[in-house]
Structures are given as C-alpha cells and as structure tokens.
C-alpha cells in the first residue's frame, strides 16, 4: 500500500521534473530572471545610495551588510517564493481537473509532487548561484550550520508559499481572473517582506504590525538567518512557519471543497 503510494509520488515528481526542464529558456525567463533582475536593480540602487552620499550606515546597515542582504534576498526568493500555481487555475477554468478527480491520486498530492520537483530544480540553481556568489566575494562563506538552517527555513517557507498559491489558484472556481489576487499578494510581498528595503528601515508602527503577518517570514527572516543576524531561535521560526502553513492548508482545503461543490467541467 505504502510502496504503491510512494511509486505514484516518485512517478509524478519525475514527470514534473521533465516537464519543468523541457523548455529551459522559458524556465529561466519565467522563474529565475525575475528575482535576478530584482536583486541586480536592488544591488545597484543600494550601492549608489551609499556611494553617492558617502553614507556610513542606513537604518543600522553598513554598505557591505546591505549589499549582502540583497544577495541573500535573491537566494531566499529562489527557494521560498518562486513557485507559481498558474496550472491550477488554468486546469480549473478549462475543466482539466476532471481527469484528476478520476485518478487514484488527489489533486493536492499531484500539485504537491509538482512543487517538490520544482524545489529540487531550485535547489540546484541555488547551489550554483551560491558558489558563484561566494567565489566572487559577493557574500562571505557561511558555516554549514547557518547554511542548513537557512535552507531548511527557506524550504519550509517555500511550502507556505505553495499553500498561498494553491488558495489563489483555487479561487478560479469562482472568478476567471484569479491571477489578480496573486498579483496583489506579489506586490504586497515584494514591499512588505523586506525584499528591497529591509523591514528594519520601515516605520516602527509598521514593523510591529508586520510581526502579526506572514510577510517577514517570506524574505526578511530567512535572509537574517543566512546573515547570522536573526534574534529568534530556529525552533520559534519553524513553529511560526508551521502555524501559518496549517492555517493556509486549512484555508486551501476549505476553498477547494467549496469550489468543487459548484464545479461543472467544460465538455461534460
């Protein structure tokens, strides 16, 4: 029974892997280029801010710390918030999930397997990028403990991101333009998760408010773990991530079941 289930998972993961890697240029342009451009823009702008005005520090960050922060943002983004759930909303809209509903493998499992395949590819890209960054001196070499802690948190946050994406994708049961919600969330995340401007530079009231949201977990906290400047313990951070994953998984389940109840497949 268990080996049968495992076989389904491995088969789906390997199929998703080959699908992901078939169109390499598309994969690069769609998933790797956006965070790369983001970090290049951020890096250039922060370097200019410090150099043009001969600033010693901004919000407690020295020039080197800020530039390292931007590099780690790239790594965290690749692992934690690169996955997209376009397929899910398209599958719902075009009635393709009907086939999934008949398979002996649930939709959630199929998409999770696809997500795992995606993360495997991202891990390779991160390993390569990190070697280049350390080799070129953009970021200093970090201890294995720090690196493992950072990668673990990023992967956990990646799963949290996946649950968010799953919820947004499932909204396609009701509206055609489910991409709008994803775009709004993307805008908010880019600004409020501490991607371009670290949360420490936000006004105090906003910093306090953000503590009660998942936004810092999406970029700021993983980056601080990589930089070795995180004040909270790893256990506390992972607990926070798990709590948010549970909340979002519950939401995903609720939205999915409600959506499925009113689903009428095209072509049926």
């Amino acid at each position, binding site marked *: 029974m268990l080996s049968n289930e495992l076989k389904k998972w491995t088969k789906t993961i390997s199929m998703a892997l080959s699908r992901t890697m078939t*169109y390499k*240029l*598309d994969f*690069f*342009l*769609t998933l790797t*280029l*956006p965070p790369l*451009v*983001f970090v*290049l*823009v951020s890096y*250039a*702008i922060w*370097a*200019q*801010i410090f150099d*043009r*005005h001969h*600033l010693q520090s*901004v*919000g407690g960050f020295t020039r080197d710390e800020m530039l390292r922060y931007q590099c780690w943002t790239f790594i965290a983004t690749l692992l934690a918030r690169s996955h997209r759930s*376009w397929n899910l909303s398209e599958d719902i809209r075009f009635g393709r999930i009907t086939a999934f509903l008949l398979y002996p493998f649930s939709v959630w499992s199929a998409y999770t397997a696809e997500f795992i395949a995606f993360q495997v590819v991202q891990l390779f890209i991160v390993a390569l990028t990190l070697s280049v960054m350390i080799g070129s001196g953009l970021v200093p070499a970090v201890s294995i403990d720090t690196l493992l802690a950072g990668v673990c948190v990023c992967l956990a946050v990646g799963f949290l991101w996946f649950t968010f994406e799953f919820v947004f994708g499932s909204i396609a049961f*009701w*509206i*055609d*333009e489910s991409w*709008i*919600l994803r*775009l*709004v969330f993307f*805008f*908010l995340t*880019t*600004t409020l998760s501490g991607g*371009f*401007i670290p949360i420490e*530079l*936000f*006004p105090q009231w906003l910093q306090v408010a953000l503590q009660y949201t998942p936004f810092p977990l999406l970029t700021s906290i993983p980056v601080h773990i990589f930089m070795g400047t995180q004040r909270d313990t790893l256990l506390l951070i992972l607990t926070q991530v798990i709590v948010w994953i549970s909340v979002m998984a519950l939401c995903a389940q609720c939205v999915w079941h409600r959506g499925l109840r009113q689903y009428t497949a095209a072509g049926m």
Partner: protein
Amino acid sequence: MTRMRPYIGVMHQQMLNSVAKLISFRVSFVLLMMVEVTAICTAYLPVNFLFHHVEQLGPWNREQFMFFVFWNQCMFCCHNGLIAPNFWNLSTEIRTGALDFRLLRPLGSVFDVMTAINRPASLILLPVSVGLLIYYGIQINLSVTAWIMLPFTFCLAFLVMCLTELNIAFLSFWTKGGDSANFVRMQCQQVQRWPDFMYPARSRMMFTTVLPVLLSGSFGVGFLFDTSRIDLVGYMLVAVVVFCFLASFVWRLAIRRYESASS
C-alpha cells in the same frame, strides 16, 4: 484620413465592448481596482521609507523623486489599461493558434494584435496618479514651459515604452511556453521604476541604448526638470523611429517563422 477611418471605427467598437464587459463583471472590476490601488501604494511606500533615512537620492529630493514615481505610475496605468492585456493575449494566441484569425482579417495585423483587448478598469484610477503628479509638480515649482510640454513629453515617453515592450513581446514567437517574454517585459518595468542615475554607468548605457527602458521615465522627467535639455527629447524621438523599424522587421521575421498550432 480615409485609410484611418476603419481603424478608428474598430478601436471605438473595441472600447465600447470593453466598457460593456467592465460593467457586466463587477467582481473583476473591483479586483482590477484593487490591483491598481496596491500598485500605487507599493510604488509610493518604498520611496517614502527610503526618504526617512536619506535627504536626497542622487540630485533629487523627496518631491522630485515622487514626481518621477507618479510619472511612471501614470504611464503604467495607461499601459495596463490599453496595451498590457494585448501582450499577454498575443502569447496565448501564438500558443493556441488563434493568431491565425487575426492574420486573416482585413486590418494591419500588428494593429489588430495590439488593440484587441482594453482594460478600462485600470484607467479609472489614472486621475489619482495624475492628481499626485500635478501635486508634486507644484511642490517642485515646475516651470511653465515644463507644464506646457508635459502632455507631449508624456505621450512620447509612453510611445517609447510601448514600442520597446512590443519588440520584447515578439519574443513570444521564439519561446515555446509563451509567457516568458511577458516576464522579461515586466522585469524591464522594474528597471524603469528607478531613475537612470541610480544605475552604474554600464547598466545605464545598456538601458538607454540597447534596451531603452530608462528613456521613458528618466529622460521624460529629466527634460521636464530642465527644459533646456532638448537632447533628451531627441533621444526619445530617435528611439521611437528605430524601434518602429525594428518592430516591423521583427514582426515580418516572426510571421515567417510562425507555425500555427491550430493548423
């Protein structure tokens, strides 16, 4: 004028259809408004936070920078309402083969492809961005000449932006998945959000010549701040001519390469 009449008629009809669609699907309308509000807030907030920590960014103070932010915001509003949906539509039509029907119509194909869809909901918040642009323009004491030249410069800058993105969108003919060209385009908009002096010399050179995404924001605003810099308008005019020719050349090349998915 006789040649233009059918095109104007088609555009008019498409606009009417878009408005009818907008009124019919209220949830979509509210959601699109939500996107625009979020876009305005997320454009304003980072710059505002930055100016809590620094007095100036390059030669610009907070008000000048905000003028630049809302100049871009106005441009993105028009772009999202009139042009952007067509770029996404183009890649979908290439993928599905629906482009065939456009190529067969008795209209200029590029015109048809680029005006097929309008999203007036995005234009509804344009007055907010324009209002803020005018507000910051008054704050920085923009000269009378600059105010007079503003609409012309805006149109020119918008044309540069659209033509640059059009050339990028044609990449969809070469990329198999379809949407990746749109992601390149969106990254260009990220670059455009910051003025040219914030980039190192080599990047600045690249983004003002090879891929002139900085022209529409930085050069347009740069000219309004100093109207004696007529060369900045000259660069934009040259970019319009060059990218017009390039777009027509790339389109012909792309059509020759296009293998319909439906045939």
